[in-house]
């Protein structure tokens, strides 16, 4: 636009030339987990404007509603101001302010005693923490195995399902080929993960005319712009996916060459039912065997000249029979159990629709293949003149993840991709480095440590067989959350959702201190919320002591959890601190290259608060944890987290940040420490990106150029191909243990469950909470795009968009129940009941009711007025969700979780609804108000930005 002349037409003068900033700083957003680059404009030290960074690989200049409200998050009156020590009863919210020295001395005293006696008595769990590369390492050095972040109730089914199948997963691990995809399928709610990249991608797809299909019981958000919306019954996605696979197999519309070359479909599975290796792969010198069609012989699958067969039955050298994994696969999915006509009623999707979707996928995959004229060389050294791919992409997140059948459903989804040849080929889902990783990744969870001793390895990892479980000789759990036990063997993210109940019950043992960060466990991050609050404040009647003796909590805001802490360590806002978006943690790479990023303080705190990461490093030094002090016992990182980000090395040359390594800053991925590294990041707008060569862009797990690049960057130890594990030998190993084989016995009470759910091929089973209890409706949550978890409710702008939630009910369902719009309804589950307001709509499965996630707030929390909309009209479904399943034979109660990964199954919820009797003026249950007197007063009028208003231009 030219400069406005203002006066050429006699228009009144308008000040169009106000300077935006006297200082600009770049950093990384933290209004959700997406980690977009932001440009922050400051005037006189106040934040004038936050916008998307146009050069940033994640968001390329755009910024969502949450990110755009960062100013209000930063200046929120709910910010904690000083360390607090509890003075009243736990849960009362009565504290006194203390100095940091006192706070850190108290914490050091408590923790030091634990470490000297029994380090596992510290349960250290973080919530939406993005610094797990630090927090996990801290737990390891402390010596407690009782560590995890929030993945156990968020998305471990997706992560584990992917990492045990394709060596990658969705979101942080891979992305659709947005430029080349012609058919995009979205399963379940995805509005929060991944936020801006998916929105950017959908804009591309729609503009290009690619077809978008949404499989979701609810037509909100992204589903609204889909070409086709399939309002599936919750928890039946796996059945739908496998019915599509059935159709493809029945018609022979699969990529046989892809299956033979890049997956374990050709690997021979031993068929010897009574033996200890039944169902495992036949091997030669450790390498899996396949049948070579040309040589007519059994050959190592790693033989570069192999022409693998996917069919037949073969006799091994020892005389036993074996068949390719594909034979098992074809038999299972060709079965009528997975025929569209069989599954139509259960899924709520007509058989004709399932058949049509299969036909569309086959057509796009095989008749509209995408060719990129880029030669590449595979791991055997064979040169390919071009890259040919299947332009079908799939994305899924919580809708699949948060069901008790989510792990197998996720595997089914990857199976569908692989049958079509649609993993890391042009137009398809693509890995983002450092993925693909070996399947599963090589890190195993570490067991308990002796007093004053670090763990032998990281507390979380990927078991490869029963021997990697954390169980005692009797098969009982060693971890407080029972992760990596027979109850949840592949609990790769831990089980945050079981910690409080287990600690309260002393099952498997009591803990001394619960140390949590950004985990709102007394509210929206717990199932069975009311009971969780009771347990946090419960005392042993005989001794008068709290059943969970000590609770340390760190948060930047007055969340519901703060009132339950004994010691509160106030954190900063995201604009006041350093952070590290590390490739060792949760990467922000895209499919063409690796990336990482930092946060830098753009403003200084005006309160007596400290970044949690600094506090953790300080505590590590005070406790003299190995790695946190030097040989003389002096702090190793006196500059705290920024110091650690630059100088900590996980192994020689590998640190938190991959960019500008080496003394001269010229190395990428691996290199010596560079004291100037943070300066270089700041010069480069706080992110680093390294593109891989074009010949490495696709077929990454089998691509020589990619494997070499990944080794050079430190992402893989060896340039060895990664073969997709459709048939999971790892799962079969657990199943064999359940059959009595091996030296890790399965306790009788778990035996049948392990046998059933450790099926080496994906299968569908109904979620554990079913209609049988008399609760006919499904109840689930969706994520509003303008609100992320609980953080947004204190935000003056965002709470004007989502201040209250409603229970959304299909108009027809409501009519049969006599419920009108805005009626109060009673919602009852097998566990509890709530009373909330109804909202009728059409774009929802008739058997499903839903609401927005985490809008409801406890009265007085987050420094909101006691009668704020969030507590008066807002509500949580969490109150209705049980944390334990009903007792099984023998009285044992499993966690309400996926039996393979321990993922919290909060989407399994079933309810019935009725019009509420009597008069209501607020949602129920309501809890006592927890207002705090020493938080700043709530302003009546907010005139943010008035000081920036430009003066009229002189005429």
């Amino acid at each position, binding site marked *: 636009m030219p400069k406005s002349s203002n006066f050429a037409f006699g228009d009144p003068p308008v000040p169009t030339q106000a300077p*935006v900033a006297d200082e600009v700083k770049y950093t990384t957003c933290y209004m959700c987990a997406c980690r977009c680059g932001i440009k922050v404009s400051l005037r006189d030290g106040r934040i004038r404007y936050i916008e998307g960074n146009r050069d940033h690989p994640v968001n390329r200049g755009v910024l969502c509603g949450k990110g755009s409200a960062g100013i209000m998050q930063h200046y929120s009156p709910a910010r904690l101001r000083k360390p607090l020590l509890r003075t009243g009863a736990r849960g009362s919210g009565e504290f006194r302010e203390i100095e940091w020295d006192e706070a850190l001395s108290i914490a050091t005293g408590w923790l030091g005693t634990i470490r000297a006696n029994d380090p596992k008595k510290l349960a250290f769990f973080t919530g939406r923490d993005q610094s797990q590369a630090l927090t996990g390492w801290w737990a390891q050095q402390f010596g407690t195995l009782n560590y995890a972040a929030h993945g156990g109730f968020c998305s471990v089914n997706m992560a584990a399902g992917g990492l045990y199948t394709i060596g990658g997963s969705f979101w942080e691990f891979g992305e659709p080929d947005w430029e080349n995809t012609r058919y995009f399928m979205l399963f379940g709610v995805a509005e929060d993960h991944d936020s801006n990249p998916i929105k950017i991608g959908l804009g591309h797809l729609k503009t290009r005319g690619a077809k978008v299909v949404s499989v979701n019981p609810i037509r909100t958000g992204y589903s609204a712009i889909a070409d086709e919306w399939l309002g599936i019954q919750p928890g039946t996605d796996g059945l739908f996916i496998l019915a599509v696979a059935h159709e493809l197999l029945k018609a022979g519309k699969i990529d046989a060459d892809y299956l033979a070359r890049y997956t374990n479909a050709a690997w021979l599975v031993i068929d010897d039912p009574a033996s200890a290796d039944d169902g495992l792969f036949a091997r030669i010198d450790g390498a899996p065997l396949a049948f070579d069609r040309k040589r007519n012989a059994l050959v190592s699958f790693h033989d570069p000249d192999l022409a693998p067969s996917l069919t037949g039955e073969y006799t091994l050298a020892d005389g036993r029979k074996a068949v390719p994994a594909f034979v098992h696969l074809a038999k299972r999915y060709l079965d009528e159990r997975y025929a569209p006509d069989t599954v139509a009623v259960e899924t709520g999707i007509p058989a004709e629709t399932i058949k049509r979707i299969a036909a569309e996928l086959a057509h796009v995959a095989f008749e509209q293949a995408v060719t990129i004229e880029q030669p590449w060389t595979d791991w055997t050294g064979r040169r390919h003149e071009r890259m040919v791919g299947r332009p079908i992409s799939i994305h899924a997140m919580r809708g699949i993840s948060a069901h008790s059948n989510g792990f197998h459903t996720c595997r089914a989804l990857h199976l569908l991709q692989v049958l079509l040849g649609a993993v890391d080929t042009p137009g398809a889902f693509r890995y983002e480095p450092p993925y693909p990783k070996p399947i599963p990744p090589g890190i195993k969870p570490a067991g308990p440590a002796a007093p004053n001793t670090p763990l032998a390895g990281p507390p979380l990892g990927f078991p490869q067989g029963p021997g990697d479980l954390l169980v005692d000789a009797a098969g009982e759990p060693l971890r407080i959350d029972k992760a990596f036990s027979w109850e949840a063997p592949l609990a790769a993210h831990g089980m945050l959702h079981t910690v409080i109940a287990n600690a309260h019950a002393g099952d498997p043992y009591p803990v001394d201190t619960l140390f949590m960060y950004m985990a709102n466990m007394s509210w929206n991050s717990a199932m069975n919320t009311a009971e969780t609050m009771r347990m946090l404040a419960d005392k042993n009647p005989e001794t008068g002591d709290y059943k969970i003796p000590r609770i340390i909590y760190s948060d930047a805001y007055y969340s519901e959890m703060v009132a339950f802490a004994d010691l509160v360590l106030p954190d900063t806002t995201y604009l006041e601190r350093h952070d590290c978006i590390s490739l060792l943690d949760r990467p922000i790479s895209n499919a063409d290259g690796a990336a990482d990023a930092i946060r830098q303080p753009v403003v200084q705190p005006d309160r007596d608060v400290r970044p949690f990461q600094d506090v953790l490093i300080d505590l590590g030094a005070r406790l003299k944890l190995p790695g946190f002090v030097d040989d003389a016992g002096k702090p190793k990182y006196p500059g705290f987290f920024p110091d650690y980000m630059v100088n900590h090395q996980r192994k020689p040359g590998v640190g938190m940040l991959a960019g500008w390594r080496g003394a001269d800053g010229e190395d990428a991925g691996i290199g010596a420490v560079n004291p100037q590294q943070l300066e270089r990041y700041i010069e480069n707008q706080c992110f680093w990106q390294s593109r891989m060569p074009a010949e490495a862009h696709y077929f990454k797990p089998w691509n020589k150029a990619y494997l070499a690049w990944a080794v050079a960057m430190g992402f893989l130890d060896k340039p060895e191909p990664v073969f997709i594990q459709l048939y999971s030998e790892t799962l079969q190993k657990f199943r064999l243990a359940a059959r009595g084989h091996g030296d890790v016995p399965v306790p009788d009470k778990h035996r049948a469950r392990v046998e059933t759910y450790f099926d080496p091929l994906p299968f569908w089973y109904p979620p554990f909470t079913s209609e049988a209890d008399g609760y006919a409706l499904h109840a689930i949550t969706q994520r509003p795009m303008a609100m992320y978890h609980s953080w947004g409710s204190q935000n003056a702008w965002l709470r004007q968009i989502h201040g209250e939630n409603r229970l959304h009910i299909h108009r027809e369902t409501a009519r049969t129940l006599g419920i009108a719009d805005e009626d109060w309804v009673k919602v009852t589950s097998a566990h509890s009941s709530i009373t909330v307001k109804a909202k009728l709509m059409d774009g929802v499965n008739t058997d499903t009711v839903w609401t927005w996630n985490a809008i409801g707030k406890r009265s007085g929390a987050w420094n909101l007025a006691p009668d704020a909309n969030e507590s008066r009209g807002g509500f949580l479904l969490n109150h209705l969700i049980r944390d334990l399943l009903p007792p099984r034979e023998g009285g044992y109660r499993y966690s309400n979780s996926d039996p393979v990964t321990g993922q919290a199954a909060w989407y399994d919820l079933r309810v019935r609804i009725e019009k509420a009797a009597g008069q209501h003026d607020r949602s129920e249950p309501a809890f006592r108000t927890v207002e705090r007197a020493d938080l700043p007063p709530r302003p009546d009028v907010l005139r943010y930005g008035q000081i920036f208003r430009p003066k009229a231009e002189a005429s």
Partner: protein
Amino acid sequence: MTSLPHTRGTARLGLVIDLDICVGCHACAVNCKEWNTGGVAAPLTDLKPYDADPDGVWFNRIHSYEVNGEDARTVHFPRSCLHCEEPACVTVCPTGASYKRAEDGIVLVNEDLCIGCKLCSWACPYGAREYDLDAGVMKKCTLCIDRIYNEHLDEAARVPACVATCPTSARHFGDLGDPDSKVSQLVREREGYDLMPEMGYKPTNKYLPPRPRQRDAASIGAPALEPLPQAGGLLGLIDRLLSG
């Protein structure tokens, strides 16, 4: 009452909003608020921001509608000032505070002249006016006049905040008075339409309707799948494929 400008330039600056790809994420609304609360109409006051029923000034609000019937869908609809060619909000203004710029067609409020009588908000059929109770004046979308001409911003940033931030690229800014501009071409190609044309206010902003949906196999030309013949079946086919 206030007159519309007698002499006009050719420029008609405005927005083109694509309802086919708007996901209703509120990025435009919040980024607008964030920019403008420190801009020429600052502040965009919020009343009782942390109490019950907070109420603030927003220049852009998003509504979601369900459309039923054969082509059932949910439509997200961002709503802001349309910078009409014949704006009733201007002609109704008793003080000359509301005015339409001759140069580029942007409709603005001169707060020095505004007496807060709200006649303009009654006159606007689109509900695009926002009364700031605290300041006692009417406020509204300025089309980010303090961005689009602002030489402190680099060229690419000289677009309204809502356009710059939109994650799906559903919002476009340009000169709808120039038939060759990108926005004018887009309106022609996608049959962009006026909101409530029957009112006769001739909005400058245009909305692009949702495209036809690809809801059946025919729309992408996919024939139904044929089961393989029983003889040989899948495994036979695989053998043939791999031997080929």
